[in-house]
């Protein structure tokens, strides 16, 4: 990807992070593919997350804690930390870049209007959830999410995703990923409360924050601090986790090219 496009996207990322912070009363309207009205949850709150990448060491404690807390099937993740080895082309210096990923609980979530039965909906506090008793498992939302934040849970055969651990928030606890983060990189809170840590940090770092894939106009509510703009969109990286297939085309494992 050329550098002009990269820097454009970077500026777009910052601008969009700013735009996403402006509270939007309601994007709901009646047209096809517009957002249906939000329901349930506390309308006086708006949850969001700020991830301070400077504090992330890529230990995957969040991945494991989430997996245990939410009993996701093996191989499916509500949150995970992507890791990249980045080499400076002039100096040859090598560094590891960590990128925790989870549902962005977007202000304009593309996964919600597509649901044919309104099984997935956005609560008034901004958390995007799935009613697994209503979900028909059409997987339309899985395809609609640009962040691969959703999957079909092979046990329930319905759509599954991060809920910001809404059940823990309601009990006055922190989400499992936040609770387990050794560096304190994940900060969750009510962005409508000006005194919350997340609100103060959003104010303090407003110009440095970035969100993922801002060009999709989803207005993500997970903000990254210390982000490299080259990772805002699909990373221009070499994939090295290659499936090793047996002569019958069945997967045997992984190997690394380097």
């Amino acid at each position, binding site marked *: 990807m050329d*550098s002009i*496009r990269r820097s454009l996207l970077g500026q777009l990322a910052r601008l969009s992070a700013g735009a996403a912070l402006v509270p939007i009363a309601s994007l709901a309207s*009646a047209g*096809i*593919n517009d957002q*249906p009205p939000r329901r349930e949850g506390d309308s006086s709150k708006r949850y969001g997350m700020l991830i301070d990448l400077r504090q992330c060491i890529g230990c995957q404690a969040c991945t494991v804690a989430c997996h245990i807390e939410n009993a996701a099937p093996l*191989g499916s*993740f509500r949150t*995970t*930390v*992507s*890791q*990249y*080895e*980045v*080499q*400076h*082309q002039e100096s040859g210096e090598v560094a*590891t870049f960590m990128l925790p990923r989870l549902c962005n609980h977007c202000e304009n979530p*593309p996964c919600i*209007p*597509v649901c*044919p*039965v*309104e*099984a997935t909906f956005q609560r008034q506090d901004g958390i995007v959830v799935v009613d697994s008793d*209503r*979900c*028909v*498992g*059409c*997987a*339309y939302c*899985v*395809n*609609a*999410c*640009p*962040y*691969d934040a959703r*999957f*079909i849970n092979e046990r329930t055969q319905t759509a599954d995703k991060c809920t910001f651990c809404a059940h823990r928030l309601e009990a006055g606890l922190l989400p499992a990923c936040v609770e387990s983060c050794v560096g304190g990189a994940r900060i969750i809170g009510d962005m409508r409360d000006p005194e919350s840590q997340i609100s103060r940090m959003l104010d303090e770092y407003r110009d440095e924050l970035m969100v*993922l*894939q801002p*060009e*999709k106009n989803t207005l993500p509510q997970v903000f990254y601090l210390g982000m490299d703009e*080259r990772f805002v*969109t699909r*990373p221009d*990286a*070499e*994939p*090295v*986790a290659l*499936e090793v*297939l047996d002569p019958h*085309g*069945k*997967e045997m494992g992984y190997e690394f090219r*380097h």
Partner: protein
Amino acid sequence: MNSAIELLAPRYDIAWYPWAVQYFFLIALSYATLWLAAPALVFGKQRWLPTARLALLACLTTTLVAPVALLADLHQPLRFWHFYAFANSHSWMSIGSLVLPLYVAGVIVLAWLAWRPALQASRQLPGVAGLLARWLSLGDGPTPRVLVALVGLGTLALSTGIMLYTGAEVAIVKGRPLWNTVWLPPMFVATGFIAACGLILVLDRIGGRRDSIVTGQVLKVMLGACLVAGLVAGSWFLDGVNANVGSVAAAIESVRGSAEWRSTALWGGLTGVVLFGAVLYLLTRPVSRRPALYAWAWTLGLVALHVGWMFRWVVLMDVQTVARHSAGFHHYGIPAGSSGILGIVGTFGLWLAAILLVDLFLPWRQARQGGAAADISLTEPASFDVEGAPSHG
């Protein structure tokens, strides 16, 4: 510029299975064959009657089987009633769930109306065919031609709803940039017509008619559909070739980054051009040479079916293997079970069974024309009588 290597990222499975390809393929055959049946059934063009009879057979069978594939693509198929209990007018899929049953009902009623006079004439037949004819003909009352035309018009209107929703449902997905283009819905329709013309050529051959009028008509429609598909593909490419993001940029990135995508693009382009060239060649031969050449048109029919199916496979399956927020491509091996090969073979098997059952027990060869046409004999063409076993050679 730095170089980066992705060390760790989960592997994301595809969310829509080959069932989706089967549904999109069969429903496209369904609406396109309906339009091929329309000149005779709805607008009373008698010259199109043999084509319409084949098209109606194809239309009814694909219409009956397509929803089965759609239902199977749900991970919770028994919850299909949620579509009606909790309909969401914001979702294209929900709109589709309302249009589809109406369309299916329209096609069934249209076929019944078109076949009813022949059913009434077959009531004295022995065996299952006679029994079915007695049940299905529902009395001796007349079947007004105008009713056939009216139901046909209504079903044609509903079929445009199917074209619109199947296309829009996929094209609005911004999360998959390759899908997110206004040129996708018209391409679905154009390739659907190509495949439907191919199906009629194949049915014409298998059914033993080998009718050169049918072949000529269908080849002309196929030529038109190929032209439209070429125009749509060209417009899609020119529309986005200079953009940094979007459908064409994503396609170029995929073709650049993967040998499989390069061969897919090459194969698709070549097949389209060869098909167009071959159809043009057949249509421009001197009249005296046409019967000999038209006898082989069914091979082009197979190519056309391949084009229609492969386009849907590439769009719906292959695009899901393009990673969208991690690097590279995800591996997808077609599983052997019902979410893979068994599902594909099973859907086609069910379809074949539907065609055979109609062929065995229903007088589809005597489908009557709708509209304001002059009355014609029910047993026309004379060589095909109700009792005689048709030649399948």
